[in-house]
C-alpha cells in the first residue's frame, strides 16, 4: 500500500486538534450514548457532564491561544477555499466559552428532573452543543448551514422534550418558521456561490476586495436573503415572533441552552458584516437595515416583556432585547460600542438562561390561572391604611431566599442595573457611542438602551414580587442542589464578569479590533501567498 494523498503539510502538534474537538467530541459521546440502554441514567449523566466540562475547558484553552489572531484547522487536510476550515479567533473562542458555560449549567440543572423526562435527552443535548460550536467555528458558508441545521434539529428535539400540548403546539410553529429560514439560507448561500464561485468566507472577502463585477447585484440579493435567514434565527422583529412562545414552552434546561441559539444568528451577522461589508465593493451593505431591525427588535422585546404574564415569557423577550441590542449596535457602526455589546451579549445570555431556570422552579406546581391576575389596577391600596396589614416579617425558607437573590441578580443583569455585568456592558456601549461626536443612530440607540432597561426592570420586578413575595397557599418552591449549582454557576459568571470587567472588556475590544481588520482573517485562512491572487 502506498499512500498517494496526504501531500499537504501535516498538522504539527497534537493540541492543534483541539480546534475540532468541540464538534467531534460531542458526536462521539452521543454515538456512545445511543448504544447505551436508556435506563443507565447515571452513566449517561456522568458522560455528558464530563463531555461538557471538557468542552468548556477546551474553549478556555482556545481563548488563551487566540492572541496571535486566528488558528485555522483544515479539515481533511484540504486548503481553503476548497476544503472546509475551522477558524478560531477571539470572537469564536468567546462564543465557545459562552456555549460551554451555558451548556454546563443547563446540563447540571437537568440532572434534577428534566434529564429523565424523555428519552435520549443527553444525546440531543450534546448534539445541540456540537451544532452551536460548529456554527461558531466554521469558516465556510454552507458548512454553517449544516451546523445551523444540526443545532436546530437538536433544538426541535429539546423543545419537544417532555411532550405536552403547549410544547407540541409551540414546536410546530417553531419548526415551520425555521424550516422557512433554512430555505432562505439555502437560497442565499447558493446565490452567493452562483455569483462568486466560492463558499469560503475568507475567499469571499478576498473576492469582494476586487472592484465590483457584473454579478454584484445578484450577490447582494443573495446576501439580503441570507441575512434575513439569520435575522429570523436571532428573532429580529418582525421575524422573531416564534421565540417567546417557543422558549416559554420548552423545558427549562432546553430553554436555557436555547438562549444561545439566537446568539448564533447574531454571531454570524457580526462575523459576516465585518468580514464582507467592512470594506470592499459591498462596504456598508445592509447596515441601516440592521440598525432598524435592531431598534425595532429592542422596542418589540420591551413591549413584550412589559406585557409578559410569566417569567418564562419575560425571559424569552429578554433574549429578544439582547439580540436587538447587538444588532442595533452593529448597525451604528461604532466599534467601541460593539465591543461593549459583545460583552453585554455574553452576560445577558447567561442571565436569560438563568431566568429560564429560575422561572421553572418558581412556576412549577403553581396555579396557572393566577398568572392572569391584574397587574396594578386592583392592587391599589391607601398607603396608610394599615387595617389588617400584617407587620410581621416572614422568615424565608433558604430556597426562597436563594431564588430571590437569583431573580434579583437576573433582573439587574438584564435591565443593566449596577453593579452587574449588564450595567458594565451598557456603560461600555454608551462610552463607545459617545466616543467622538454622537451621531443620530447613536442617540437612537442610547434612548433605546435606556428605555429597554426600564422596560425590563419593571416587569421583572413585578413578576419577581408575584412569585416570591405574594403569600400563596402553594407549597414553597423546592430547590434541588443540582439546580442551585446550575443557577449559582450562571450568576457567579455574571458577577465575575462585572468584577473582572477590565480584562473582559479588553478582550472584547481586542475582538472588535481584530474583526475590523478582515484582511488578517483572510490571510490567516487563505495563507499569505494567496492574498490578492486568483489561484
Amino acid at each position, binding site marked *: 500500500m502506498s499512500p498517494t494523498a496526504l501531500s499537504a503539510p501535516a498538522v504539527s502538534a497534537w493540541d492543534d486538534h483541539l480546534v475540532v474537538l468541540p464538534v467531534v467530541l460531542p458526536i*462521539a459521546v452521543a454515538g456512545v450514548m445511543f448504544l447505551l440502554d436508556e435506563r443507565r441514567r447515571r452513566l449517561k449523566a456522568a458522560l455528558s457532564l464530563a463531555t461538557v466540562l471538557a468542552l468548556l475547558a477546551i474553549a478556555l484553552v482556545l481563548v488563551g491561544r487566540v492572541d496571535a489572531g486566528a488558528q485555522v484547522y483544515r479539515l481533511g487536510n484540504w486548503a481553503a477555499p476548497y476544503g472546509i476550515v475551522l477558524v478560531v479567533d477571539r470572537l469564536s473562542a468567546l462564543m465557545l466559552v459562552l456555549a460551554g458555560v451555558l451548556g454546563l449549567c443547563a446540563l447540571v440543572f437537568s440532572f434534577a428532573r428534566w434529564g429523565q423526562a424523555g428519552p435520549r435527552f443527553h444525546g440531543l443535548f450534546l448534539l445541540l452543543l456540537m451544532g452551536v460550536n460548529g456554527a461558531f467555528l466554521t469558516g465556510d458558508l454552507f458548512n454553517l448551514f449544516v451546523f445551523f441545521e444540526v443545532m436546530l434539529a437538536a433544538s426541535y428535539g429539546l423543545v*419537544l422534550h417532555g411532550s405536552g400540548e403547549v410544547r407540541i403546539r409551540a414546536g410546530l410553529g417553531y419548526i415551520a418558521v425555521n424550516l422557512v429560514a433554512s430555505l432562505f439560507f439555502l437560497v442565499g448561500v447558493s*446565490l452567493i456561490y452562483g455569483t462568486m464561485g466560492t463558499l469560503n468566507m475568507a475567499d469571499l472577502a478576498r473576492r469582494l476586495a476586487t472592484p465590483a463585477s457584473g454579478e454584484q447585484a445578484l450577490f447582494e440579493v443573495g446576501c439580503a436573503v441570507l441575512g434575513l435567514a439569520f435575522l429570523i434565527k436571532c428573532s429580529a422583529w418582525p421575524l422573531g415572533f416564534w421565540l417567546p412562545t417557543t422558549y416559554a414552552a420548552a423545558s427549562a434546561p432546553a430553554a436555557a441552552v436555547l438562549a444561545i441559539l439566537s446568539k448564533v444568528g447574531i454571531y454570524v451577522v457580526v462575523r459576516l458584516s465585518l468580514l464582507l461589508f467592512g470594506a470592499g465593493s459591498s462596504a456598508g451593505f445592509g447596515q441601516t437595515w440592521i440598525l432598524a431591525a435592531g431598534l425595532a427588535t429592542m422596542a418589540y422585546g420591551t413591549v413584550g416583556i412589559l406585557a409578559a404574564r410569566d417569567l418564562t415569557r419575560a425571559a424569552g423577550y429578554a433574549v429578544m432585547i439582547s439580540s436587538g441590542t447587538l444588532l442595533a449596535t452593529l448597525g451604528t457602526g461604532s466599534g467601541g460600542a460593539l465591543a461593549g455589546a459583545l460583552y453585554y451579549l455574553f452576560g445577558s445570555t447567561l442571565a436569560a438562561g438563568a431566568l429560564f431556570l429560575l422561572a421553572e422552579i418558581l412556576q412549577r406546581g403553581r396555579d396557572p390561572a393566577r398568572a392572569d391576575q391584574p397587574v396594578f389596577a386592583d392592587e*391599589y391600596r391607601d398607603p396608610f391604611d394599615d387595617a389588617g396589614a400584617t407587620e410581621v416579617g416572614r422568615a424565608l425558607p433558604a430556597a426562597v431566599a436563594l431564588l430571590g437573590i437569583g431573580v434579583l441578580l437576573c433582573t439587574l443583569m438584564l435591565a443593566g442595573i449596577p453593579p452587574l455585568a449588564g450595567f458594565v456592558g451598557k456603560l461600555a456601549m*454608551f462610552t463607545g457611542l459617545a466616543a467622538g461626536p454622537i451621531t443620530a443612530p447613536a442617540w437612537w440607540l442610547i434612548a433605546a438602551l435606556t428605555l429597554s432597561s426600564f422596560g425590563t*426592570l419593571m416587569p421583572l420586578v413585578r413578576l419577581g414580587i408575584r412569585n416570591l413575595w405574594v403569600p400563596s397557599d402553594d407549597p414553597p418552591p423546592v430547590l434541588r442542589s443540582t439546580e442551585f449549582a446550575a443557577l449559582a454557576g450562571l450568576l457567579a459568571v455574571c458577577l465575575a464578569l462585572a468584577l473582572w470587567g477590565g480584562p473582559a472588556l479588553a478582550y472584547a475590544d481586542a475582538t472588535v479590533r481584530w474583526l475590523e481588520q478582515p484582511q488578517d482573517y483572510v490571510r490567516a485562512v487563505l495563507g499569505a501567498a494567496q492574498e490578492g491572487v486568483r489561484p
Partner: protein
Amino acid sequence: MPPQLLLATAALLPFLGSAAVICLPGHARNAAALLAGLVMVAALGCIGLLYPAVAGANTVAWSLDWLPTLGVQIVLRLDGLSWLFAVLVLGIGALVVLYARYYMAAEDPVPRLFCYLLAFVGAMLGIVLSGNLIQLVVFWELTSIVSFLLIGYWSDNASARDGARMALTITAAGGLCLFVGMVLIGHIVGSYDLSVVLASGDAIRSSPLYLPALVLVLAGALTKSAQFPFHIWLPRAMAAPTPISAYLHSATMVKAGIFLMIRFWPVLAGTESWYWIVGTAGMVTMLVGAWSAIFQHDLKGLLAYSTISHLGLITLLLGLDSPLAVVAAIFHTVNHATFKASLFMAAGIIDHETGTRDMRRLSGLWRAMPYTATLAMVAAAAMAGVPLLNGFLSKEMFLAEAVDNAGDHWLNLALPVLATLASAFTMLYSVRFIRQTFFGAAPHDLPHAPHEPVRWMRIPIEFLVFVCIAIGLVPNLTIGPLLAEAVRAVLGPRTPDYDLAIWHGFNAPLALSVVALLGGVALYVVFGRRINSNPRGGPWLMDRLDGGRLFERAMTGLVTGARALEGHLGSERLQVQLRILFLTVLLAAVLAGVARGLDLFAPGNSTDFDPAFALMWVVGAACAVGAAERAKYHRLSATIFVGGAGLVSCLTFLWLSAPDLAVTQILVEIVTTVLLLLGLRWLPKRDAAIPAPAAEVVRARRRRIVDLCIAGFAGLGLAGLAYAVMTRPAVDGIARWFVEEAYPRAGGRNVVNVLLVDFRAFDTLGEICVLGIVGLTVFALLRRFRPASDSLGRPRQQVSHDAYDAARADRSPGETAADALLVPRVVMTWLFPFIVLLALHLFLRGHDLPGGGFAGGIALTIAFMLQYMAQGAEWVEARLRIQPIAWIGIGLLVAVLAGAGSWLFGRPFLTAYFAYWEPPLLGKVPVASALLFDLGIMVLVVGASALMLVALAHQSLRRTRSAEAEAERVAEGETA
C-alpha cells in the same frame, strides 16, 4: 493607619458586616444589632479619625482600577462635604440600629433587616465617597435596590410590596437617566473622574450637550429626593418598618439627591436652565408637601409629606444661584436629618406602644408618656423653626435667601411670600401633630394601653434632640467648623461669609419668620377642627389628585398598552408569521436588487431548447399547481401530485447531468410518500361540503388573494434569480479544482461523491447528525403519541373487510385482507434480498459512480419498509430485530472514527487515506478511509429512517391495543 486605608476600611466595613449578619440565625436580634452597631461605630470612628485629613479643604483619595478601557476606576474621595454626609449616614445609622433592636418584633427575622440596612449604609457611603461618576451611579442604583428590599421587608403586606415596587420603579428610572447624564458629562469632560469634572465647570456649561446632561442628571437627583412630581413614592415607602423610614426616607437616602445637586452645584448650577428646573421643582415640592402634610391623619404620613416639603425647601435653595443658599441648603440638610429622624422614631414609639398612628384616635398621650412627648415636641418645634432650635437657624437663612433673591420676575417676587407661606404650613402641621397626639382628653379605645417605651429605645431620640438643641443654641461651637469644611469643599474660592448666630437683629427674615409662626398657629386655630374631620386625609383642593394612584394607573396602562401592542406588532399565529417572512424576503430581495440596478434578463448564455424537457416541466408545473389546489380536501390526491412533481424534479437532475441527485431524489421521494401516507391516517376527515360562516368566507377569500400574490411574486422572484444566474457566464470559482483533483488527490472519479465523503466530508458528518437527531426526536415524540379520538377507530375499509369475513361462515377473520395481500407478499418478500443487494451495490460504487452511502441506506430502508407494508409490523419484528437507535450510534461512531483515524498520522480530522491494494487474482482494489466514512453514513441513514418508519408504523399497533373496545363499537355502528 494611613488615611487611605482608614477610608477604604470605612467604605468596606458595612458590606462585610452585611454579609456577616445574614449568616446569623433568624431570630438572633441582639447579636445582629450588636454586630450592626459595632460596624456603624467602627466605620464612624474611621471617618471621624479622618477629620484632620480633610480639614482645611483637603481631600483624601484611594483608588482601584476597575474598567480601565472605559476610564472607570473605583475612587474613594473624602472631602469636607462627603465627610459631613458620611458622619450623618453613620451616626444616624448607629442610632437607628439601637432603635430598631427594640422596635422590631421578636418574630421578625431581624438579621435580614440589618443585612439590608448595612448594605444600604455601604451603598450610601459609596455615593458620598464616590470619586468617579460611574461609581456614583453604581452606588446610586444600589441604594434604590436596597431601599426596595427594605420597603418590602414585610412582604406579606400588600402595601409594602406596592410601595417597594413604586419606589424602585421611580428611583431606578431616575438612576437610569442619571447614568446617561453622567456618560454625557464624561463625554463632555473626557473623564469620569470627579476631581476632573469638578474642575471643568465652564466646559460643561458651554457644551451643546449641557442641557440634556443637566436634565438627565436632575432626573436622577429629583426622583431620589422625592421632588414633585416624583415625590409620590415617598409616602408609599412608609410601609417600611419605622426605623427604615426614619433612616432612609428622611435622613439619608432622600438626601442622596440633595447630595448630588450640592456636589455638582459648582459645575452645573449658575445657568437659566438650572435655576428654572431646580428652583421650580423645589418651590412646588415645598408647597405641595407642606400642604399635603397638613391633612394627614397618619403620623408617618404627616412626617413623610413634611419630609417632601423640607426636601423641596433644600432643593429650592440649591436652585437659587447663590453660594449663601448652598450654605443654607447644607445646613438644613443636617438639621432636617436630626429633627426628622427623631420625629419618626417618636412616631414609631407611639405606634409601638399604642398600636395606632392615627391622630384622630390618639390624644392626651402626654399623660402616659411625658418623656417621649417632650422629646417629640422639641423635635417638632425644630421642624417648625421655633427659635433656639436648629431648624430655626436654617429657616432663617432660607428666608434671608428668599428675600435676597427676590428679583424682578414675578416668580422671584413671589419667592419670599411663598417661602413664608410654606413656613406657616410647617408651623400648622407641627402644631397639629403636637396638639392631636399629646394633648386633649385621655386616650380611649386604643389597641394597647400607652406607656413609656423601654429606656434604650428612647436613647436615640434623646441624642438627636440634644443635637437639635445644641446646634440651635451654640451653632458655632457645634456644627460651625464642620459646615465650614463642607461648604469650602463645595464652593472653594466662592465660599461666602456667613454667620451662624441666633440673633441677627430685627430684619426682614425675622419678620417673615414671626409671621409664619404666628400665621401657622392662627391657621390651626381657625381650621384645625375641619382638618381633623377631613375624611381619608386627602388635602383640600388636591383631594382628587392622588399622584400615587395616577402613577399606578399609568403603569397599568403601560402594561395594558404593551399587551395590546404586543398583539398588534406581533402575532402568535403561524400563518401570519409565515406571511410576514415571505413578504419580508420579497421586500429585502427587491430592495437589494433595485439598489444595485439588477437586470434579471441581461442577454447571456443559454442551452439548446428541448421541447421534451419543456413538456416534462408542463407536467411538473401541473402537478405542483394541482397539489396546491387539492391539498385541503383531497389530501391523497395532493400527495400523489407531489409525487409527480418529485419525479419531474428527479428527471430534471438526470437530464442536466446530476445522476447522483436523481438517485437520491427518487429514493427520498419514495420514503417521503410512504411517511406522508402513514401520517395521513391520523388526520381528521375534511369535508368541503361543510359550509363556513359568510363573514368567514369573505375574509378567507381576501386572505387567499393576498397569499396568492405573495406566493406568485415570490415564485416569480426565485424564477427570475435562477434565470439571471443561469444565463450569466460561469464564475471562475472553486469548482474546477475539485474536478481536476478528485481523482489524483482523493482517488474518486465521482466528483460529487468525493466532495461528500472527502473534500466536504464535514458537511456530511453534520448532515447525518441531523438525520440521527430527527430520528430520535420522532421516536421520542411518538412514544407519547395519543391519536385524536376521532382517528381511533379502524379505517372504514378494514371494518368492511371484517364485516365481510364475519358475515360469511366459510371465512375466518382477517382472511379477506390476507387474500388481498397474498401476491404482493410473495413478491415483496422475495424482492427483499435483491434490494439489499442494490443497496450494497449503490454503497460500494459510490466513490466512482453515482450512488453512495446515503443512497444505499435509503434503499435498504425501503427494503425494510416493503416488508412492513407487506406483512405488518408484528410479523416483521418477530423475524427481524432492528435496533435503529443503536444503528444511529454505530453510524455516528464509525463516521467519527473514520475521520479521527487520521490523528494517528498527525493529520487533521477527516483526512482521507486511500491506496490501491493488489491482492492476487482481484487486481487493483481501492482502499479508502472515505469508504469507511460512507459506511457510517449508510448505517446511520438506515437507523434513522427505519426509526422514523417503525415509530410511525407502530402507532397503528398501539391504537389496536389501546382502543380495541372503541374500534369494536365503531365496527358495530358501521355494520348496523
